[in-house]
Every structure is written in C-alpha cells, then in structure tokens.
C-alpha cells in the first residue's frame, strides 16, 4: 500500500498554503496526496466548499506538480471529524492543514476545524500558515 498524505482544503489562501506544503512533503516522502474539501452542508451556500471552477483549477494545479493526487468532497456534521475519518480510513502518514489566526474567544464562537484535527488525528499533523 502506498503512503498517503491527507490535505484539509478550503478554496482560499489557507487551503492554498496547505496544498503547497503537502506537495513538498509528498515529494520528500514519496507519498500520494488526498485533498479533502468538506462542508457541514447546512447552509445554502458555503464559501469554503469548492465550486466546480475552483475544483478544475485545483486538479489542474495538482496535475502540474507531478505528484499523484486525488480530490474528495465530503458533507457531514463536523468537517474536522470528516478529515480525520478519511485519514484513518486511508491510514494516512500525515495530515496537512492551513490554520488561521483566531483568538480563543473567536474559536469558542466559530469553532475550529484545524483544532479539531490537531486534537483527534492519530497521525502527525502539519499546521501551515500562509505567508
């Protein structure tokens, strides 16, 4: 079985940073990428769920890197849990996540996908900030 790196992706600068870091890691460790884009699916429109145009662009960009990659979109109650589940299912060696600067109060109010992943994932987690 080939080694997998899971990327928690959102179509913004944070997801962009995560993908870049993951591509570099995948080259180092000779692993394939599994890009996961999740949503709670409880609003009519979710900006952090990639639309068809954004997906095409993402796959094109991934193909250009030469790393074998797969994109998966998932819907569930907690996006962090969804990413961790996918990682467990594939026995991932690493999860890469883009983190945003958010105060403790902000975390309390808005929740945090990255925090959820950091706390519950079985494998090492790489947290990246966009530059």
């Amino acid at each position, binding site marked *: 079985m080939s080694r997998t790196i899971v990327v928690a992706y959102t179509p913004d600068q944070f997801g962009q940073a995560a993908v870049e870091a993951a591509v570099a890691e995948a080259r180092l460790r000779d692993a394939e990428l599994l890009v996961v884009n999740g*949503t709670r*699916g409880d609003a009519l429109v979710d900006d952090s*769920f990639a639309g068809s145009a954004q997906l095409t662009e993402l796959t094109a960009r991934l193909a250009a890197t030469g790393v074998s990659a797969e994109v998966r*979109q998932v819907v569930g109650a907690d996006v962090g849990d969804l990413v961790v589940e996918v990682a467990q299912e594939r026995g991932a060696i690493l999860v890469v996540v883009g983190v945003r600067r958010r105060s403790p109060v902000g975390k309390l109010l808005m929740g945090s996908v990255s925090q959820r992943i950091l706390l519950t994932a079985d494998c090492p987690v790489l947290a990246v900030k966009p530059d």
Partner: protein
Amino acid sequence: MDNVNLLLDGLGAAASPENLMYAAIGVILGTFVGVLPGIGPAMAVALLLPVTFGLGPTQSFIMFAGIYYGGMYGGSTTSILLNTPGESASVMTALEGNKMAKKGRAAQALATAAIGSFIAGTIGTLLVAFCAPWLADIGVEIGAPSYFAIIVLAMVLVTSVLGDSKLRGFISLFLGLTIGLVGMDLNTGQPRLSFDQPLLADRLDIVVVAVGIFALGEALWVAAHLRRKPLEVIPVGQPWMGKEDWKRSWGPWFRGTALGFPFGAVPAGGAETPTFLSYVLERRLRKGEEFGEGAIEGVAGPEAANNASAAGTFVPLLAMGIPVTATSAVMLAALQGQGIQPGPQLMSEHADLVWTLLASLLIGNALLLVLNLPLAPLWAKLLVIPRPYLYAGILFFASLGAYSANLQPFDVFLLLVFGLLGLTMRRFGLPVLPLILGVILGPLGEKSFREALIISGGEASGLFNETLAIVLYVVAVLAIVTPLVLGALRRRTPTDVEVRA
C-alpha cells in the same frame, strides 16, 4: 375622480412616520424571507399574526403588504444568483436569469427584475385602486347563493389550476375544509369534530393552523433533509443596466404587467400561469433568439407578470373577501383577528383602511426599489446562514405565537399536530395553499350556504336561484372537466411539443 382623491388621502395617511416605519420593516422582512428558499411571505405573515393583535389593523396591513411585495423581489434574487427559485412564481425567472448570471450579466438581470417588479407593482396597485371599488359595488348586490358560488369557484380554480396533481390539490382542500369545521357551529352552537374536548369546541385558532403548517411543517421538513451539498452562488455587485438593456426590457415589463394582473384579479390565482405565458410570449417575439442562453426579456417579462399578479390578488381580497394566494389567505385571517369582517362591505365600512393599504403598497414598492438595487450583494450574503440557526429562530417565534394567541398550552400541542401534518403534506407532495384556503374560506362559504338555505326554507333550489350563481357553477365544472377531456384526447400525442412550440 373620486378614487384618485381617496387614494391621495390614503397616501397622506400612509406617509406618517409611524406607518412608513412599518412599511420599511415589512419590505426588509419580506425581502429577507423571499431570498431564503423555503421561507416565504406566507410563513412570515403567519408568524407575525400574533404581533398584529397589538398593532392597529392599518399598521399590520401596511407591514403585511410590504412583506408580500418584498417576498416577490427576494425570490427573484435567489432565482437569478442560485438557480433555486425561492417560490413557484420565480421558476420562469430562473430559466433565463441564471443563464444571464452565468454569462456575467447578473447585475443586469437583477436590475431588470427589480425595476420591472416596481413598474408592474405600481401599475397593478393603481389598477386595484380603480377595479376594487367597482367590483365591491357589484359585490354588495350579490346574494348569499352567488357569494357561496364565488367561494366554490375560487376553491375549485385555485385547486385545479395550480400544481401538477388535481387529486393532491383536492385532498389538501378537503383536509382544510375539515379543519375549518372543528369547533362550535356558529349557527346552532353545537360542537362539531371536537371529540368532547372543551378546548377544541372553542374553534381552532387560525394562527395555530397557519404557523403549524407553514413554519413548523417547513422546519421539520428541513430538519429531515438537513445536510445537502452547498450550491454555487454567482457573485454580484451593484445591479445596473445599459442602454441596450433598457431598450429590450421596457416592452416585456408592460406586456408582463398586462398578462399578470388579470390572472391575479380573477380568482384563478397564482403567478405560475401568467409568468409562464409571459415567458412564452417574449420568446416568440424574439423568435427564440438568445433564449436559453440568458435573454433579458425572459427575466423582465415574467418578473413583471408575477408582481402584477400579486397586485391583482388584492382585487378579490379587498372587494369580495376572497384570497387566492397563501399569503393573502393569511392576511385575511389577520383581518378577521382584528374583528373586521372581510367581504364586499369592507370597501364602504373600512374605506380608510383599504385606501391606506393601497397607498402603502405604492410606498412599499418604491422602498423596495430603493433598497434592492444597492443592497442586492448584501441580500445574497444571507444565503450563508446555516439552516439550524435560521429554523431555531423560526421555531421559537412559532411556539411563542401559538402560545400567545390564547395563552393555552393546548395550542402548543395543536401546533405540533399541525406541524406534523405540514411535514406529512410536504413528504407526499400535497400543496399547502388549498388547505389554507379551505380553512379560511370554508367557514365563510358555510355561512353563505346556510343563509341561502334559510332564505329558501331549506330547498336546495335556493342555491341556484341567481343567474350569477349558475354561471359560476358552470365555470367551476368546466375548470374541472375540460382539462380531463383534453387530457384524454391528447393522450396519444406528447404534450411537451406544444409547450415548447
């Protein structure tokens, strides 16, 4: 002209700061609920019913009128940007509107929809101001047998013309009529369908029925289908139109208005037929050119038609006391809650209320144009509100409203029962409108029915002794039979062909 003076007086009354505030609240709330699919103006008005008991009739009607028109505007925004019609009247708008948006012309689509709605709403309201008093004059002369026939006709037309399945429509209508029977018989004082429950014998509160069916039913339905893949919204800036767009839009606006108003005004109700006709007409006039790829005429025409028809529904509501849309049905219930008996005498007995209402429709319409053109991008942002937050709020207000109507915990239990009924109806595709019409028109119809029979001494012939009544029954029978016969004749040819021709 007498009507012009009355309307000007109404404008004077409606322009007081307090009334203007209610108009503004109405249009903002209306646009809010119109933008969000699943939450329509009917639900908003039902949720606000208890609030109106604290307000005067004029203020509550000004607010409701704003919600009604605002809902229409909001619905078009969702249709165009999301390709998800907020309500049935916007289905046709979505066809061309979303194509326009995908081609990067969302701003123009929204602008033509908003300006077209404004023009159609204004012309429609002016037409109401001239038609309704005239119709009410005739209405006063109408006897009980004919009034009963009108109610029967309205129920038959609304049930058979709207929606795909007549069977489902009539099931829903009879459910509504049955609910309307529960409680004390107003003529004899005997309890009916009350199962020896004193609380049921007191008649069901329309607030509880309407809120249960619209708000709780929808909330349960959404809860059962909570997680869905998010839709792609098309980002939009400030709506505007170029010279070419204006040139192409004004024709469809006026043609749409002309088509929409009569359909709203006769109790055939609904904006579905006129919006469809307007779409087909514009497509023919353009010889199909650009249609299917985002033709601005396909947005301008149907949008004007649906607002003109919304205005038209005020004619039967004000002149006869007969509602033909879910929203106007709930508004009628609000009138009854204020102790005002709807019917032909409304125009003469509560003239100031009627004219202030018509004037505030004009004001509300203008407010909507002012609000919607600059705020469209903001309204689109509403779509990111997670459903649980939204429906938690709705459930809170629904329970509060049901309880505050009579301060009876039993009403909250009834609310739950009607909420489950609303969920079941959505599950089996039963339309909600015939049920609400049945609940509200049923008792009114029964009253005229009994009156006619008392006059004739219990002879059934007493129901047919007016020419108007017989004509109306013939129309009602034709409305049911004609589609059946035509359907049988056409069974061999595919019906789709003529729809697309």
